[in-house]
């Protein structure tokens, strides 16, 4: 599948701090790709390099088949970028902001603009500086959707927003998802889970994994085994077992490469025959926490 966004061995260093350490990322065309990771993982840096806001120290990035450093007027007519900490022209009213942007985009759709204004309930006559955080984000998103961009890049769009606004933003995005590739970085895993098709987990400047969300949710299981008597903690547990713990005759762990037959066989070989085995699906948030904890513990 073609990639709308791609990075190869991307490095970024701010003085002595390495923000990105060889990031290899590929966002499939047409996907809704969620880039997740703890604070300081390098998500915003990666996105800013992709948008040609920052220059990479090393490596390369490609956006819509163009080197990110070569992104120019033409490419930006097909890209919608919204960031939580973007400086908007606060002195403009919402309607004049849209009016100012319109001539920049040959594909600006006035009826879509009106639709977005209605959908987001935007106060057209109010100045951007007087909008609430949620309203500002909605105005920014509307201004980035009204020209049918091929690529929508959202950097932490849901941070600090109330659930209602988040829902409105997500709905606004999903309504236009078919015609675009969407890259969204976020901490809000519960929201991401509801609409992302792909997910990448970035940590310490490296991509730990990147896959379809359904695949990720399928391969993570919380495993609970009940034995007749308390088994000793095995020293030869597979690498895919995480947070292995025992409580009396019950052993629990997280399987990160779940396959019913293979996992049962591994349990039998490492711990012996269990009286009862349960495999519970995990939420994205739980998986994220497991991954973060495992990383912190040096696993």
């Amino acid at each position, binding site marked *: 599948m073609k990639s709308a966004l791609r990075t190869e061995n991307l490095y970024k260093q701010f003085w002595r701090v390495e923000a990105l350490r060889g990031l290899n990322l590929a966002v499939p065309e047409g996907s809704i790709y969620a880039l997740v990771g703890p604070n300081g993982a390098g998500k915003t840096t990666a996105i800013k390099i992709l948008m040609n806001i920052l*220059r990479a120290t090393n490596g390369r990035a490609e956006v819509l088949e163009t080197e990110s450093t070569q992104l120019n007027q033409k490419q930006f007519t097909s890209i919608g970028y919204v960031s939580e900490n973007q400086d908007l022209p606060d002195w403009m009213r919402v309607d004049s902001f849209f009016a100012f942007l319109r001539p920049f985009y040959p594909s600006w759709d006035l009826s879509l603009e009106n639709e977005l204004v209605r959908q987001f309930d935007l106060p057209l006559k109010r100045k951007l500086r007087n909008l609430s955080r949620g309203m500002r984000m909605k105005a*920014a998103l509307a201004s980035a959707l009204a020209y049918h961009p091929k690529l929508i890049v959202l950097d932490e769009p849901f941070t600090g927003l109330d659930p209602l606004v988040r829902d409105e933003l997500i709905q606004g995005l999903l309504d236009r998802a078919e015609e675009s590739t969407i890259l969204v970085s976020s901490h809000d895993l519960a929201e991401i889970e509801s609409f992302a098709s792909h997910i990448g987990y970035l940590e310490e400047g490296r991509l730990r994994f990147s896959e379809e969300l359904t695949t990720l949710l399928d391969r993570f299981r919380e495993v609970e085994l009940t034995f007749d008597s308390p088994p000793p903690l095995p020293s030869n547990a597979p690498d895919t077992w995480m947070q292995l713990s025992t409580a009396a005759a019950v052993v629990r762990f997280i399987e990160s490469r779940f396959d019913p037959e293979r996992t049962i066989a591994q349990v039998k070989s490492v711990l012996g025959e269990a009286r009862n085995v349960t495999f519970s699906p995990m939420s994205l948030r739980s998986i994220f926490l497991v991954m973060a904890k495992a990383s912190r513990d040096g696993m």
Partner: protein
Amino acid sequence: MRQVIHIFLKDLRHYWRESAVSAGLLVAFAWNEMRGWAHDDELAVGLGGFFNFGFLSGLIVALVPLAWSFLAVRAIQGESLVGNRQFWVTRPYEWKKLLTAKVLFVLVFVNLPLLITQVFLLARAGFSPTQHAVGLLWMQMTMFLFFILPIAALATVTGTVVQMILALLIVVLYAVGMGFLSEHIPSSGFSGPVDSVTAGLLICGCVFVILIQYARRETTKARLTLVGLAGTLLLILVFAPYRTFVDHEFPPINSGQTASLQISLLPPDKAFRETAAPEEDNEVQVRMPIRVSGMASGSVVIASGVLIRIESNGILWDSGWKSPGLFVFPEQGQSQIDFALKKKTFERFQSSTVKIRVSLALSVFQERNTREFVTPDGSFLLSEVGHCFAEGGYFGRIHCLAALRGPSFLLLKADMTKNTCPLTKGESPRTPGEIAWGWVQNGGSEPAEFGITSVKTVNLYLSSTNIYPRDWGLGICPGTELTVSTPQMLRREQIEVQFEGVHLPEYRQGEAKVRATSVVLRSR
């Protein structure tokens, strides 16, 4: 072009208040200038001494460039080039069009109002603006290159007005430091090609910074460029071979050549010796009266530079080239060379006689287009300058308005026995043969001077240079006969004379008198 106009109109909507203030100040400036034509000296305007004409005038002159700077900075920082949070960097802006829009904004709201004001002032002063079109464009260009461009370069590397003010403070401190340093670098007044190199570097550096910021937004590189530029200018100031420049510009005359003038040392000036130097002065002022002879009739010599070297008992002191700006005329007969030594240096020379070598860098002029002229009553046209009128009284003068620039060199000569100005009470009549001179020299051949106003004020005074010391401020009144000429430069040369066996303390200014403060109590 559509994008350029679109951004320009957005800036127009956003910065109309700043533009209006700037235009208002320019109107005030024009009004103030016109008042100044009639009120060259301070004139109270009714709000007490503080808000006199001079103060208001200075305030307006300072506020106009400040308003322009603010306007340009606001417009440039409207699409800030510093940081990575600006919304516009991920919008379909084309940097060349953005830059063009900003240049257009500055041209429309700084240069155009300035041009209109200059045309208006010229017309009001009685000059034809169309005849001075080249000069007007020259003023616009110099204003853009030497004022707007540096301001714009700073605006591109600062994100906010506050940052810009801090940057300007640093620039001011740097300029003050450079000025202080240049005072302590011998001969640095003779910059020769340094000024051109400095101006070229400044313009190129600013253009580079602006381009790199708009094209790539590489703020660190742009800021380092400005720091590097400042460092380069500092190095040029410190290490420029000034003496070589002087020798190149004023070639020493060969043994076979005749100098434009000869000088010899005269006895010390008693009046000067009796003048007490300021107590806190760390320097000793020395005055060497000189006899001047051998000048060709109709010539004028300007001592553009003087270099003093004093030798005694193996000790050598060198003043470095200084610019005394000394004018010498054939009828003058005598003049003086002043210089200062540190007290400690002077003390090393005061016990014995010294040898003084004086080098003079001379600009030799010959009077041209000489004509007789009787100062009319009321307004008149002095073709070499512009529209003038004679102010009467003992300190009478000719007050002129000139278009775009003062004259390159204008010389006035008057026989003071024929002066029509009234004598003041107790003043004795002028003695026959007493010649007074007046001159205005702006140098250069540029079509206009750098500045805001298109109408320059030129005041012509006379000084009786063959009276020693000079008697400044001799009047020119209606009816005063003058000889007017526009001297042309013939050559530049350097002469050196040597005075042996000079007892330096005889030529120094009187020593500081110790001021005793006492309180007398009287009882009845």
